[in-house]
C-alpha cells in the first residue's frame, strides 16, 4: 500500500472537486430517496383509502386548514437565497484560501505529460477511449448524450411524478437515469481520475504509479478470433453482430418493457418508442462493450476499411 501515492492523487488540487462531488451526490441521492419513499407511502395510503384521498392535502409536509398555501417571496424565499449566496461565498473563500489552483510547468509540446488527463468532468469520455475509437468516444458519444438528454421530456410519456419525488411511479425512468448518470458518467469519471495512471493503465488506489510498467495484453478482434480473414466478410460479419445486438437486445427490452411498463408502452407513439429504444440500447451497449473488452480481450467487433467498432 503506497499511502504517499494515494495521497498525491487524492490531494491533487484538480481532483478535489470530484472528491467533493461523490459525498455530495450520495447525500442528495439519500435526500431524494427519503422524500421519494415518503411520497410513495402517502400514495399507497391514499390509493387504499379513497375517502382520505379526497380530503388530504396530498403532500408529505405538514399542512393545517388555516395555513396559506403560498408564502410571500419577500422575505421567505429571498432570505433563503441570500443565505445560500452567503454560504456559497464562505465555502468558496475558505476553499480558495486553503487550496491553490494547480499550475504546472509552462506548456511544452516536446514534453508529454504522462498521464495526460482532460479536466475531471471529461474523464468519463477519456476513459471511454480505452474501449472505443476516438470518433465514437470523443464525438459520437458526447453528441448522443446531449441529444439523448434533450429528448427525455419528449419520450417520457408517464404523466405521474411531475413535481414531487417518487420511485414507485417512475421506476423505469429513474433507474435508467441513475444508471446513466451515476454508473456511467460519475463512476467513469471516478475511474479516470483515481484509477488511471501513467500510460492510462489501471492502478488500484494505493498502488504505486510505475511509469515503466508494461502490461502484456493481447487484444484481438472478434472476426480474427473466429478465423474470418477476408475484409469483405469481416465487414459483413461485424454488421451482423452489431445489427444482431440491436435486434435481439431490442426484442428483449421490448418484451420486458411491454410486460412491466404496459401503460407507457400503450401511451408511446412509434417514433417515441423507437427513439427511446435506440438511446437505451446504445447506452446499455457501453458497459457490454467494456465487459467484452475486460473479460475476453476483444477489441473490435466490426471492422471495415473506414471505421471499426
Amino acid at each position, binding site marked *: 500500500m503506497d499511502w504517499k501515492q494515494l495521497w498525491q492523487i487524492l490531494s491533487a488540487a484538480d481532483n478535489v472537486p470530484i472528491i467533493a462531488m461523490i459525498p455530495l451526490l450520495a447525500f442528495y441521492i439519500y435526500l431524494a430517496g427519503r422524500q421519494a419513499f415518503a411520497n410513495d407511502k402517502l400514495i399507497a395510503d391514499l390509493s387504499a383509502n379513497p375517502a382520505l384521498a379526497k380530503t388530504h392535502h396530498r403532500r408529505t409536509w405538514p399542512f393545517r386548514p388555516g395555513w396559506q398555501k403560498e408564502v*410571500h417571496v419577500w422575505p421567505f*424565499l429571498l432570505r433563503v437565497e441570500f443565505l445560500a449566496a452567503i454560504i456559497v461565498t464562505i465555502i468558496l473563500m475558505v476553499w480558495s484560501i486553503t487550496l491553490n489552483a494547480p499550475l504546472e510547468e509552462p506548456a511544452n509540446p516536446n514534453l508529454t505529460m504522462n498521464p495526460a488527463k482532460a479536466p475531471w468532468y471529461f474523464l468519463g469520455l477519456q476513459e471511454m477511449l480505452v474501449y472505443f475509437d476516438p*470518433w465514437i468516444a470523443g464525438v459520437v458519444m458526447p453528441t448522443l448524450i446531449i441529444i439523448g438528454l434533450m429528448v427525455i421530456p419528449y419520450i417520457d410519456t408517464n404523466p405521474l411524478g411531475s413535481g414531487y419525488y417518487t420511485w414507485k411511479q417512475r421506476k423505469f425512468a429513474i433507474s435508467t437515469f441513475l444508471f446513466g448518470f451515476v454508473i456511467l458518467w460519475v463512476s467513469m469519471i471516478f475511474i479516470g481520475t483515481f484509477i488511471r495512471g501513467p500510460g492510462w493503465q489501471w492502478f488500484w488506489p494505493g498502488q504505486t504509479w510505475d511509469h515503466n510498467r508494461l502490461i502484456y495484453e493481447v487484444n484481438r478482434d472478434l472476426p480474427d478470433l473466429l478465423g474470418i480473414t477476408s475484409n469483405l466478410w469481416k465487414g459483413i460479419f461485424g454488421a451482423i453482430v452489431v445489427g444482431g445486438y440491436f435486434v435481439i437486445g431490442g426484442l428483449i427490452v421490448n418484451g420486458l418493457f411491454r410486460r412491466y411498463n404496459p401503460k407507457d408502452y400503450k401511451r408511446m407513439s412509434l417514433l417515441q418508442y423507437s427513439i427511446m429504444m435506440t438511446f437505451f440500447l446504445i447506452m446499455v451497449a457501453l458497459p457490454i462493450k467494456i465487459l467484452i473488452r475486460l473479460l475476453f480481450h476483444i477489441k473490435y467487433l466490426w471492422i471495415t476499411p473506414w471505421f471499426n467498432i
Partner: protein
Amino acid sequence: MSRLLTRLKGKNSRAEENGGVTMADENKGNGNNGKPGGLLTRVTAGVKEDVEALKTDLPAKAKEQIEILSKPTKTQLYTSIFRHKHDDTPRNRALGVLSNVFLHLHPAKVNRDAVRYSYTWGMGGITFYLFFVLTLTGVLLMFYYHPSKVQAFRDVLYLEHDVPYGKLLRNMHRWAAHLMVIAVELHMFRVFLTGSYKKPREFNWTVGVILLVLTLLLSFTGYLLPDDQLGFWAVTVGTNMARATPLLGHEGPFGPQFGMTPYNDVRFGLLGGSIVDANALLRSYIWHCIGIPIIASVFMILHFWRVRKDGGISGPAQVVLDSEVKEAKK
C-alpha cells in the same frame, strides 16, 4: 494705422468733454435714471430687509428641512427611486419583488413548501450565483492577463506572486468554475428526479441541457489559458478527438474521403492551426471571455423566463394517483 489711432484718440477726447466721467463712474452713480434717494441707499435698505427676512425665514426653513429629513422616505429623491412604501403589508411585500428589476424574476408568492431546501436543493440559484462570481473574478483577472504565448504563463505567475490578492482571485475563479459544473449536474439530477421536465416544461429542459454543455465548454476553454502543461495537454487530448469527427475530421470515418486534411478539418477551425499554439490560446480566450458567456447569457435569460412562463417552480406538487390519470384518447 495712423487713421485708427486718431479715431481712438477722438473717442477719448469725447469722454473728456463729458466732464471727465468714464463709463465706470456712470454705472456707479448716475444709473438711477434721475430718481431720488440714489442706488446705494436703496441697496442697503434692500439688504437690510433681506437680512431681517432671513432671520425669521432661515430658522423656519431649517425647521421645515429638519422635519423633511427626519422622514427620509418622503423626500422626492427617495420616492423617485423607491416607488412604494415598505411597511409590512401584503401589498408592499408583493411590490418589493415586482417593482424591483433584479427581483422581478420571482413571482410575488411561491408554494409554501417550495421554500424548503429539501425539494429544490437550490442548485439552479447557486449555479447562477457562481456564474455571477465567475464573471466578477474573471473580469478582474482579465486586467492582468494577455492571451499571448509570450506573456500568458508569466501573467499567471505575476498574478500568483505580485498582484495583491491575485492568488485568491485565481483560486476563486478556478474553484467556482469546478463548483459550477457540480452544481449544474446536481441541478439537472434534481430536475429529473422530481419529474420537473414533464409537461409543460419540456422545452426548458432542453434549454437546460444546452446550458449544461455551455458550462462544460466555458470550463474547458478556460483550462488552456494559464498556458501550462496541465492545460496544454488537456486541450491537446480534448481537441485530438476532433480529428476523429466523422466526415469533418481528417482521421475520422469518411473524413479523408470527404477531403479533410489536418489543415482544413474541424480541429483546425477550433485551434486556428494544426497544433495547440498561439492561435489556439487566443481563440480559447475569446470563446472563454466573450463568445460563450454571451451565448450562455442569452440561454440563461430564456431559461429563467421560461421557468416563470411555464408556471414557476414545479413543486412540491400534490401527488397524483395512478387511478386518476386520464388517458388521452387516440
